[in-house]
């Protein structure tokens, strides 16, 4: 089977190269025979990569330690659940997994578009194939997951204990689905540039792809934060680690793109800007991969054998410079005659949001690459820590949060000052009431506390803006049709899915901002060394350390569990069982925290250390409002689902347009 897996990877590479060349030649030579031949290649490449992946999965599930990769990331005792996830646990498998996702996306794009837009699609497929070829080249010749061990050992080294968490099954695939997904809009943007089809056709073709990729990237970031929170045992969820930043930057740029494309769709302007944003988003996904796999920047996420940096760096520069050259060559065609109607309009609020998002992305980028630059210039690697990011990004983030509320309230095209006064009166009043009500309750003084106060006030402002939008839409619908309030709300949302789905996503963003602010400013923690029966207090919780238990969970894993009773107001509240897990052959034990999460706060316990006399060092964090962030994620998921739901009206309009086009300018097949 391993031979087959290795062989199909080679066949996939050869087929992808042929497919790429055939697509380009079919477009340049206007040859349908070549197109029909190339048309078979996406499915073949996907099939080959799929067979190869199945072979590798089989290696994990059957404990085939003749494969170096399986030996390095699995062992006999590993749960089947983690054996499946070990596929992407190391560099070699993760690149194969990336390739599998990319070829899967390519097949879907192929079936969606193979019979339409034939001036653009062959080039888009060729671009997709170029990227597939790059990854197939790596998995064939540089990081082959089917590399053998001449004398196979009896057992494997096992998966890193830190990765033995259910998030390992969820987080990497989600993040990869986002990363890889942006290849599709990127490919269509490049294809539009090459074929000179520079209207907004490529945007309409890839709108859903962009939204899906954005959604996965967003959820991938949140899942990653959630994983870091429960696994790393430091009480936090985000550390501005270079690899976290690498996933965050494309998300920011893609968010800017999602907003600014609306201006192009509505007003046929900002073509260069949108083109640049999607190209930059893709470049940032490759940059993220470069960081994870280069070993140039220290991060908890980097792969052990991070040796691929130069390949990714070269690929990154090739993409960057060729895309820039393409945009410059097409500048005359990308010019727009339209202009903004007014400075006071939703369009201009979107422009501001773009600038702020790019500002945060740039600051994050600068902080991420600063160690490389400082080493190159001064010979010393200076790492930029969270204070830098917080100092720069928090004020910009707050301005962005304000715009989340301001944008929807301003009308498209033009708003007047009197309108703004009228429309912002209620949200501003709500914000004012919140400011007055919160001032005596919330501690003020330090910079963090002040920022948190401003965040909460802005959250109320934005929520008021959005809820009033829902209310006004519902009221307008009720005024025109005889419908109940809930009926009108449902109809108005369903008929304007993009608009109201977006508003729901904004509510999710507000919850995330509130969660971050609350947990950063008002969290507290304590570390105590306790003997059994001893009690200590933290924020109204009485915590008693009861006992320490050691359990041989498996032949390779021993669990040491501390049991603590938590009382509140004199009555039993929770039994906490934080633990340390010891894995055979691993020097460092892994902390498994225990968390009681409520809407108000998380009670987060870590077994930091223990001694033979059963005394233990316990760290307890009280982190307010953390669950708001995770709830925000689900709200974002719900809003995105509404935005993406197929719109029958739009489909009807598209069909009507297509019918008119075909009547007047029939495609060759109909002539």
């Amino acid at each position, binding site marked *: 089977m391993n*031979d*087959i897996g290795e*062989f*199909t990877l080679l*066949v996939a590479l050869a*087929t992808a190269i*042929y497919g790429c060349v*055939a697509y380009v030649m*079919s*477009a340049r030579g*206007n*040859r*349908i*025979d*070549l197109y*029909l*031949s*190339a*048309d*078979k*290649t996406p499915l*073949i490449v996907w099939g080959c990569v799929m067979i190869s992946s199945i072979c590798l999965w089989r290696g994990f599930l059957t404990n085939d330690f003749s494969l170096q990769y399986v030996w390095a990331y699995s062992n006999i005792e590993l749960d089947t659940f983690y054996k499946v996830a070990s596929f992407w646990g190391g560099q070699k498998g993760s690149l194969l997994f990336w390739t599998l996702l990319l070829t899967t996306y390519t097949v879907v794009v192929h079936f969606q578009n193979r019979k339409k837009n*034939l*001036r653009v699609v*062959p080039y888009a497929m060729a671009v997709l194939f170029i990227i597939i070829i790059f990854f197939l080249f790596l998995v064939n010749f540089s990081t082959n997951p089917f590399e053998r061990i001449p004398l196979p050992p009896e057992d494997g080294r096992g998966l890193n204990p830190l990765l033995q968490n259910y998030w390992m099954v969820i987080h990497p695939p989600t993040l990869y689905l986002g990363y890889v997904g942006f290849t599709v809009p990127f490919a269509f943007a490049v294809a539009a540039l090459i074929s000179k089809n520079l*209207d*907004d*056709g490529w945007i309409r073709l890839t709108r859903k792809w962009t939204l899906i990729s954005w959604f996965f990237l967003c959820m991938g970031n949140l899942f990653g934060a959630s994983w870091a929170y429960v696994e790393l045992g430091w009480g936090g969820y985000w550390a501005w680690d270079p690899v976290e930043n690498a996933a965050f930057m494309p998300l920011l740029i893609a968010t800017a793109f999602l907003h600014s494309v609306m201006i192009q*769709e*509505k007003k*046929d302007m900002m073509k260069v800007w949108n083109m640049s944003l999607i190209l930059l988003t893709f470049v940032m996904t490759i940059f993220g991969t470069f960081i994870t796999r280069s070993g140039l920047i220290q991060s908890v996420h980097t792969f052990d054998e991070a040796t691929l940096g130069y390949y990714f760096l070269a690929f990154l520069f090739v993409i960057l410079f060729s895309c820039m050259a393409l945009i410059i060559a097409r500048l005359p065609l990308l010019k727009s005659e339209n202009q903004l*109607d007014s400075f006071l309009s939703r369009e201009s609020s979107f422009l501001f949001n773009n600038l702020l998002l790019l500002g945060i992305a740039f600051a994050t980028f600068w902080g991420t690459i600063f160690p490389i630059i400082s080493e190159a210039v001064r010979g010393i690697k200076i790492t930029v820590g969270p204070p830098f990011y917080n100092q720069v990004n928090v004020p910009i983030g707050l301005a962005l949060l304000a715009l989340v509320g301001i944008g929807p*309230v*301003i*009308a*498209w*095209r*033009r*708003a*007047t000052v*009197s*309108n703004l006064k*009228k*429309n912002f009166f209620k949200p501003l009043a709500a914000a004012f009431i919140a400011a007055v009500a919160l001032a005596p309750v919330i501690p003020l003084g330090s910079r963090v506390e002040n920022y948190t106060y401003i965040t909460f006030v802005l959250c109320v402002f934005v929520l008021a803006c959005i809820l009033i*939008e829902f209310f*006004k*839409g519902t*009221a*307008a619908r009720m*005024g*025109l049709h005889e419908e109940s309030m809930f009926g009108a709300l449902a109809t108005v949302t369903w008929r*304007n899915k993009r608009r109201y789905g977006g508003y729901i996503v904004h509510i999710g963003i507000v919850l995330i901002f509130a969660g971050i602010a609350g947990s950063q400013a008002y969290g507290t923690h304590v570390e105590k060394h306790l003997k059994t029966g001893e009690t200590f207090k933290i924020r109204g919780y009485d915590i008693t350390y009861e006992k320490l238990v050691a359990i041989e969970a498996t032949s390779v894993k021993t669990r040491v569990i501390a049991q603590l009773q938590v009382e509140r107001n004199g009555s039993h509240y929770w039994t906490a069982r934080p633990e340390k897990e010891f894995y055979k052959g691993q020097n460092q034990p892994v902390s498994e925290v225990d968390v009681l999460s409520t809407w108000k706060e998380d009670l987060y316990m870590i077994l930091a250390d223990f001694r033979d006399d059963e005394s233990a060092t316990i760290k307890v964090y009280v982190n307010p409002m953390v669950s708001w962030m995770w709830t925000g994620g689900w709200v974002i998921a719900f809003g995105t689902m509404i935005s993406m739901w197929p719109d029958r009206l739009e489909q009807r*309009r598209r069909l009507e*347009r297509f019918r*008119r*086009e075909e009547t*007047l*300018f029939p495609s*060759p*097949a109909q002539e």
Partner: protein
Amino acid sequence: MGFVHFLELLFVVVILLVIGIPLFGKMKLKKLVEAVDPDSDEYKHLLVRKEETLISIKELEFDLNTEKISESDYQELRKKLEAEANELIERLDQLEQARKKNKSAKSR
């Protein structure tokens, strides 16, 4: 030759056949796309613009109903959008007429 190698060879032959057949078969159509017709491109572009302008008019009505803009702004912007839509429709009509004339001339 082992069974695995035989399978691999068979696999390659099948792939070569699948991608090779279109290159040697007879095609009904020779060209992938017709030569670029500026009228066709313009027509498609204008159809999209017309659709967007009509959507903008609907949204403007929605903005008026939700009191996001004043009546006077609404009237002014609506006039502007209607003028844009009329211009687009006129140009679309011109292209349709020209195309129909060409077609009938060709058929004669």
